[in-house]
């Protein structure tokens, strides 16, 4: 597995797309901090960029890379090597490359311009999103034989998580506002990894507003150590479940 990891990482390190991703994030982040007159505004704009762009890029890139390396995967699969070692190495390398690109593209500008707790949480949440959506991308690529359809499914999933889910949830919230919906809102929002990552950042930047409610429910739920652990666990599940399925699919997949 380490060997596959090593060589896939070498391949990825020279991949134009990964470099492009690092540069794009760097450009966006640097640009926001340089152009926006205000560092707080830059950080908050970056939050929105990260929450939308990072999942999209992780998802689409992973899907495309998995398709593009299919022949090489085939070459690896006829070697005396377990399927699980091949996929494991590839996924680890993908995760490492994307996280590395993100460290440069996002972590570095944040470090330079805004070394706050909020920025650190943004970095962490962004990294979690990379892992979640790379895992989903891998599963899509393995389940779907056709590249075009795979990319289509990836885009649909991204759209669902980034926009549709929230729209539906909010619609439901206002439609059912006569009912005691409170206990469901937080868990339902917490299921969506993008929402969850956003809430973790929000607890830093919108904390003051959230303390405004006597119930202070979000603060109590997510802000506590227990809540943070629960959030981390949910995100970990979002990584683990697709990865497990990917391994199951790949073990018996016809290449």
């Amino acid at each position, binding site marked *: 597995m380490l060997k596959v990891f090593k060589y896939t990482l070498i391949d990825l*390190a020279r991949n134009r797309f990964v470099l492009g991703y690092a540069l794009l994030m*760097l450009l966006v982040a640097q640009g926001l901090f340089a152009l926006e007159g205000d560092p*707080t505004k830059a950080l908050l704009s970056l939050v929105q960029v990260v929450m939308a762009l990072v999942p999209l890029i992780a998802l689409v890139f992973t899907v495309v890379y998995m398709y593009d390396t299919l022949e090489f995967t085939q070459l690896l699969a006829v070697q005396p090597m377990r399927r699980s070692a091949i996929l494991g190495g590839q996924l680890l*390398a993908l995760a*490492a490359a994307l996280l590395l690109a993100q460290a440069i593209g996002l972590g570095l500008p944040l470090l330079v311009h805004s070394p706050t707790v909020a920025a650190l949480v943004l970095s962490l949440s962004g990294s979690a999103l990379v892992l979640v959506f790379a895992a989903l991308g891998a599963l899509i690529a393995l389940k779907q034989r056709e590249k075009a359809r795979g990319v289509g499914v990836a885009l649909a999933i991204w759209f669902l998580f980034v926009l549709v889910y929230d729209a539906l949830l909010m619609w439901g919230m206002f439609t059912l506002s006569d009912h005691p919906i409170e206990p469901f809102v937080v868990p339902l929002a917490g299921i969506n990894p993008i929402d969850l990552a956003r809430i973790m950042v929000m607890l830093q930047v919108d904390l*003051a*507003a959230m303390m405004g409610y006597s119930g202070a429910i979000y603060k109590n739920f997510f802000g506590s150590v227990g809540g943070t652990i629960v959030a981390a666990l949910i995100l970990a599940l979002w990584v683990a479940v697709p990865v497990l399925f990917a391994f199951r699919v790949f073990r018996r997949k016809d290449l």
Partner: protein
Amino acid sequence: MRELLILLLACLSVTHVGARTWRYRSGAGASLQTVINGTAAGDTVLVEGTVSEGSIRVDRPLVLLGGADAVIDGGGEDDALLITADHVTVKGFTIRGSRRSNLDDMSGIKVNECRGVVIEDNFLDKCFFAIYLSGVKDARVQGNTVLGEPGEEDHMANGIHLWKCSKATIRNNRIEHHRDGIYFEFVTDSHITGNTSLHNLRYGLHFMFSHRDAYEDNHFEDNGAGVAVMFSKEIAMRRNRFLANRGASAYGLLLKEINDGEIIGNTFQDNTTGIMIDGCNRINVRDNEFRLNGWALRLFANAIDCDFRGNTFAGNTFDVSTNGSLIPNTMNGNYWDRYAGYDLDRDGHGDVPHRPLGFFTLLVEMQPYAMVFSRSLFVSLLDRAERLIPSLTPESMKDDRPLMRPPVRKNRAVAVANKRLFPHSAFVIFHSSFFIPAGMGLNEKWRTSEHSVVLVHPCIFPLGGRYQDHG
């Protein structure tokens, strides 16, 4: 009696025309009160050691100077130090042990019905009221450190408390863990400058029925409910910092029934509500900075003729909220970080008005749980749509000349420096963990090959851009 006389003569060191200096060391026989009773107006008493003989009363103009280890310990009886004469100076003491009583306002230092008192450089240690001025003119309270202890409201009183005073100066004091840090009631023509008021149970500073006062360059942080100015006229509030006042009824600054006030150059950061304006007339709000507050501004519909100019609104969850639709106030030339307009004529002002009352603000008013969607893509799309075609937000609330860039302020981002809790190392450690596997994977041979690994090349590090000034 003869011994006492000898002692007094021994204490007598310097003689001026009509003013003597007495040197008193506790434990040397006589009590401090006896010494004071033997002084004449204008004398100086230099005190050393711990005086614990109950309440000390100063009833003539005196200078009380605390020596190196001077402590006045009231021993839990009444006020530790009671001043009832004009022109008394108390300087350099540690004062403690006032009785804790709500019935008769027991204090560390109580000053009653006089003028020209100076209370300077004292340390008030866990007193009930710490410094209590009642009916005092021309008082100066300066450089004191006033520390209470955390507790319940019933057992706590105010740090610096003024009642029916005028022309007082409260300067460079530090007050922590009292009920209200500084309390003014019926106090006129006074100045509060350069004080730090932290962790107080209720308000960092509290005005009631006080007029023509100014407070400037103070620092208020983490007080239960912030700063409250109520039922007062002509209060000037300049260059203060209102930080981290969080809670359901916490405000950076709460204004209730205030006329003709001005709020200029202050910083409001991390407060649940930056400023709450309720029933006020003619308030001039200029050049303030509202940063990372829950609601930067809550403007009740009963506020009239308030004028907002040159303020910076950045990173607030909600910039403005209100409870009415007719807003008889003006907003002009503020910086709003949510402004999405353009400036074609390059005059520094956006060409289309900004409506600071967002759609999402209204949604959250209707359904607090919608808060969970803050800063989501969906909400920002909704907000943008609403700003283009206003349907629910009041038409009259708008800034016709929003600034394109935040106005430059000298003490800008002071508060941000306090937020710098995480050192760079936390970032570096977190992100460098990604470099380790990469380094593992790329051994020397591969790295030096024709197409070297550009990812780890340092040339793509900072591309320029502005470094933020945290000064």
